[in-house]
């Protein structure tokens, strides 16, 4: 019988094609998370490694700068080595214009002595520019140059104050000075700590206050400026290895072995010179290259599970489609099964034969699915991922498929085929022989529909939803209880839509034919009075119609949910960035006067500017603003932030003596709108302390206000109260006692202007850190896991829609085949055969519309439930906003359009059917 099974499988391979397609899709979807993770791992490793400025640091006392560096560079796996001598810590240098006199524009700096070839690798340490520095010239970072208005060719004076002792009892402070020309102004990244890469080995001042000189100027400068640099000096050699050879993102042990190997090579080369060699690490994370792959790998365990879990809906849909195709195929073979049974095959023999076919299909589907997964991964990485905001960082991966992966995939696909086929095969094999022999048409003329079951499913779904709503409204749970509650909510909200869709779909498709009749009227303009055939076509195969409606509803719900969720998450990311930054540029510093503010506002590239002063008070920190300036500058201020009151109160804060506490302050003090508050501000201390009492009235309560968070988070959990500066001045507070973070400037730039320009100006002019909104937003979005997650979800949403279109089209095709005889009869009576495709269009569209009608409310409920759950389990972040983007509705319409097109294409064969042959076969 195995031979029989294989023969029939081969000869009816077209029948098996749909099953293979469905199963291949399921296999491919399983493989996609693995691809997503591979890409994420590569990107994470790359990001972490990029923060490591150098790979090894060799240190030793030597004057043989070139020889030592060449030895290090000659080690296997090394691509470059640069020596640096750095003036020791503890010395104070000053820089200033020679004409401005001693004491003017003094800044403590260090000197780093380098070769011209340092330029090749200086970028990794945060410096870009030429290091060709003849004697008497220096390279100066743009921070220092900008601050003092210096440029190439300008002269600066270096000053070293040294305690010189002519004898044991006679010491005096002496000034050693020298003038140098600026040979290069080096570019440094905005608001970065990359220059502090030099601070790591130096263990002191940030890199922005380092100037560079040529190594060959060391001896001269040591003498002229009386630098306390040893002879031979402590030479530091930065070593860079070929990271492409060094790092295997997927194998931590191999990476560590390679790193150690290169380190040993460098050490061996420099051993006779007395150098010690150590691995470099990231100043931000502290990780070394040998740690990075292991750390990333450890973090993937959870993510692997999450991504696979999120693939389950799409896998489920593909398997449902597979099951439907298999079931349809078996229905067509019922007579054949009856024949086999009548000839003496028992149930076991028939079951075994059909299972052999199913398992063979599974093996074929496995290979097809593997190939498809490679294609899908290209789509996922090359198109879907690149089109998501901020996710372009994941590169197109080289896909490699191991033998073990192939073996596992084949086994999994065969197992899936068996699980899908076995219950259907058992049922088909066990059918009564006489019944099977009698059945000529694969139509199911009767399905046992139990209204009670539909009602029960719907009731359970609604109950789950109500229970969810009730539980989600509860708050105040902490710790493990909160986690368990969240888990329970997740289960409920996963069950509720499934139960609701199943229950309602069963009623709509099996319990009544009104929806069919109503929807069939869609094609009445073209089919005239024959639109009833559309309803008839759906009604005569109720199980198939019902399955299709359910499949469509699930797939559309999943796809629409994914698209909306991505929009919600991205909207929240933008909201967080806007809340933290407040404007196009945020600059925390001190010493910005009213005149400075006016000058800034007058810049042509600045649209608005406002200053915030953070002051201590008896009730926490006060954020003193100019209400009207703030409202004009911070255009992201809207009602979202307000728990009580609205954004209109901000502009009139001064006139109302208003105060806006954040939620922490309002909760701690029990504040509501209208409450009066006496704020005590103390200036000075001890005997000179002076208390100022400021009476304010609460005019609103907020979660947060853009740009006014003291911490780096979007919500400040320390009590903060926003007041107008004029209110404080009216109470006599003309001098404000600043507290961390001090003074903050929030700027809006003109729309066509680059905010980095004014940000750099601010950093140069004042000491502080500028944050550009766009950069900050990109850094939030630039999360490889998030990119992988949403890329995967988008791909699977697309697959889900594809499965639905395929399922409906194939059902339309089968419907056409099954009804060929009656349709031929209609045509023989004078109906235009070109309109036959409209029949199938009507059927497919009706199913699509039913599925859509079920999917829309389910999606909205799921989104609402997601937001409620998120608010419950993450109360410390800004709440997500309910967003249903236009793309969601476009997706819905596109799916309906795809279903319509698929149905029409499936019906094209009817236009060319051989009328006499069909009529003859049907006995007419």
């Amino acid at each position: 019988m195995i031979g029989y099974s294989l023969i029939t499988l081969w000869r009816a391979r077209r029948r098996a094609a749909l099953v293979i397609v469905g199963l291949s899709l399921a296999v491919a979807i399983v493989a996609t998370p693995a691809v997503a993770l591979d890409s994420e791992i590569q990107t994470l490793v790359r990001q972490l490694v990029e923060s490591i400025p150098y790979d090894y640091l060799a240190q030793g006392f030597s004057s043989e700068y070139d020889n030592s560096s060449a030895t290090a560079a000659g080690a296997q796996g090394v691509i470059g080595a640069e020596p640096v001598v750095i003036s020791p810590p503890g010395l104070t240098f000053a820089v200033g214009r020679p004409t401005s006199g001693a004491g003017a524009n003094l800044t403590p700096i260090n000197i780093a002595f380098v070769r011209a070839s340092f330029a090749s690798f200086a970028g990794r340490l945060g410096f870009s520019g030429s290091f060709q520095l003849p004697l008497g010239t220096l390279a100066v970072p743009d921070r220092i140059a900008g601050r003092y208005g210096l440029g190439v060719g300008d002269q600066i004076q270096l000053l070293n104050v040294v305690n010189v002792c002519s004898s044991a009892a006679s010491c005096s402070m002496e000034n050693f000075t020298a003038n140098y020309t600026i040979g290069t102004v080096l570019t440094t990244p905005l608001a970065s700590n990359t220059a502090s890469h030099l601070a790591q080995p130096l263990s002191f001042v940030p890199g922005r206050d380092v100037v560079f000189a040529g190594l060959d100027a060391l001896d001269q400068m040591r003498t002229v400026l009386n630098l306390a640099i040893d002879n031979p000096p402590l030479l530091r050699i930065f070593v860079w290895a070929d990271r492409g050879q060094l790092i295997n993102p997927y194998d931590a042990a191999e990476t560590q072995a390679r790193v150690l190997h290169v380190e040993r090579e460098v050490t061996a080369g420099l051993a006779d010179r007395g150098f010690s060699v150590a691995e470099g690490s990231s100043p931000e994370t502290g990780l070394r290259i040998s740690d990075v792959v292991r750390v990333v790998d450890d973090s993937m365990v959870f993510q692997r599970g999450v991504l696979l879990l999120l693939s389950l809906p799409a896998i489920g849909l593909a398997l449902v489609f597979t099951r439907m195709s298999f079931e349809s195929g078996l229905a067509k073979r019922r007579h054949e099964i009856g024949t086999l049974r009548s000839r003496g095959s028992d149930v076991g023999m028939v079951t075994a034969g059909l299972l052999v076919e199913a398992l063979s299909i599974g093996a074929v589907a496995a290979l097809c699915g593997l190939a498809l997964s490679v294609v899908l991964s290209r789509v996922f990485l090359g198109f879907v991922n690149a089109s998501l905001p901020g996710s372009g960082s994941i590169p197109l991966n080289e896909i490699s498929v191991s033998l073990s992966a192939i073996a596992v995939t084949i086994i999994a696909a065969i197992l899936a085929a068996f699980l899908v086929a076995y219950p259907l095969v058992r049922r088909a094999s066990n059918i009564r022989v006489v019944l099977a022999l009698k059945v000529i048409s694969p139509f199911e003329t009767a399905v046992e529909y139990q209204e009670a079951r539909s009602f029960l499913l719907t009731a359970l779904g609604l109950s789950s939803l109500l229970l969810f709503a009730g539980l989600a409204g509860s708050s105040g749970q902490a710790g493990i209880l909160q986690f368990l509650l969240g888990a329970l909510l997740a289960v409920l909200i996963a069950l509720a839509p499934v139960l609701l869709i199943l229950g309602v779909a069963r009623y709509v498709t099996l319990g009544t034919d009104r929806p069919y009749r109503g929807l069939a009227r869609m094609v009445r303009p073209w089919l005239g009075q024959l639109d009833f055939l559309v309803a008839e076509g759906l009604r005569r195969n109720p199980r198939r119609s019902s399955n299709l409606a359910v499949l469509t509803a699930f797939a559309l719900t999943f796809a629409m949910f994914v698209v909306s969720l991505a929009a919600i998450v991205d909207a929240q990311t933008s909201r967080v960035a806007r809340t933290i930054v407040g404007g196009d540029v945020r600059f925390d510093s001190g010493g910005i006067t009213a005149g400075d503010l006016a000058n800034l506002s007058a810049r042509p590239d600045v649209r608005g500017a406002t200053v915030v002063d953070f002051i201590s008070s008896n009730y926490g920190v006060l954020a003193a603003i100019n209400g009207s300036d703030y409202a004009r500058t911070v255009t992201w201020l809207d009602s979202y932030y307000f728990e009580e009151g609205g954004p209109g109160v901000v502009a009139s804060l001064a006139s109302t003596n208003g105060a806006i506490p954040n939620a922490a302050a309002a909760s701690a003090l029990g504040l509501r709108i209208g409450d009066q508050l006496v704020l005590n501000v103390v200036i000075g201390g001890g005997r000179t302390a002076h208390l100022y009492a400021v009476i304010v009235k609460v005019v609103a309560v907020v979660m947060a206000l853009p740009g006014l968070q003291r911490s780096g988070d979007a919500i400040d959990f320390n009590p903060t109260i926003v007041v107008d500066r004029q209110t404080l001045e009216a109470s006599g507070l003309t001098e404000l006692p600043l507290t961390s973070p001090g003074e903050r400037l929030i700027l809006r730039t003109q729309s066509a202007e680059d905010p980095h320009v004014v940000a750099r100006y601010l950093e140069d002019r004042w000491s502080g850190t500028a944050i550009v909104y766009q950069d900050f937003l990109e850094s939030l979005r630039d999360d490889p896991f998030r990119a992988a997650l949403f890329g995967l979800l988008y791909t699977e949403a697309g697959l889900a829609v594809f499965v639905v279109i395929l399922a409906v089209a194939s059902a339309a095709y089968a419907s056409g085949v099954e009804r060929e005889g009656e349709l031929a009869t209609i045509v023989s009576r004078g109906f235009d055969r070109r309109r036959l495709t409209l029949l199938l269009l009507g059927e497919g569209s009706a199913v699509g519309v039913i599925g859509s009608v079920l999917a829309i409310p389910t999606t909205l409920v799921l989104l609402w439930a997601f937001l409620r759950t998120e608010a419950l389990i993450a109360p410390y972040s800004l709440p997500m906003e309910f967003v249903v983007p236009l793309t969601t509705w476009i997706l819905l319409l596109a799916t309906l359009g795809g279903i319509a097109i698929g149905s029409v294409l499936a019906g094209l064969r009817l236009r060319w059917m051989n009328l006499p042959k069909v009529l003859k076969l049907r006995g007419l």
Partner: protein
Amino acid sequence: MDAKLRQHDRVGVEICDLIKVYRTKVKDVIALRGIDASIPAGRAVGVVGPSGCGKTTLLNLVGGLDRCTAGSIRVGEREITRRGEKELARYRRETVGIVFQFFNLVPLLTAQENVELPLRMVGWRAPEREKKAGDLLEVVGLQSRADHRPDALSAGEQQRVALAVALANDPPLLLADEPTGELDSVNAEAVMGLLRDIVHEHGKTAMIVSHDPRIGGYVDQVLRMVDGRLVSPPMAGN
């Protein structure tokens, strides 16, 4: 023909108080109301009657395709009404061959392969299987159409292939349900003649259900049924 179909042990059929009730949601339908009949071994019996009288039901029960509600059927030494499905399947493989009104050939298989199908079920090896099938097709006069699928054969040819299929395992009992129902008179005569010859020359016991009034000319005995009962003593056939 004799060389190609071997002689088989003859079996007779004893039917005792056979009752079959179809239970539906609307009402119960009594298809057989207590049939008593006897088909001697090696004899051919025709079963005639109006449409819906229970002829096919009787044949299905004797063929092991369905189960009775009450009563018994003995084929040779074997009582089949109390047998399990596995034993009934074996019964259908080894003891009975059925010719159906609508041929019931597997559309994906050729004529040769259709005839080989029962032989595969009992484990015949390919060379012997192919030879036996070829011989049977020669018996029914279709050896030249062995490689054709059913949709390439005429109705008469399909029924002859179906007859060859029924004979594949040399069953001692041959059942035919309206074997000429889909055939024109020429083909019907040809098929009935073939049946008669095979039955008589090889001592097979046969039950043939038919509307054809000429059935008497091909069988030894005619049973008339009306409303689920045998209504008259068996009429002698030709």
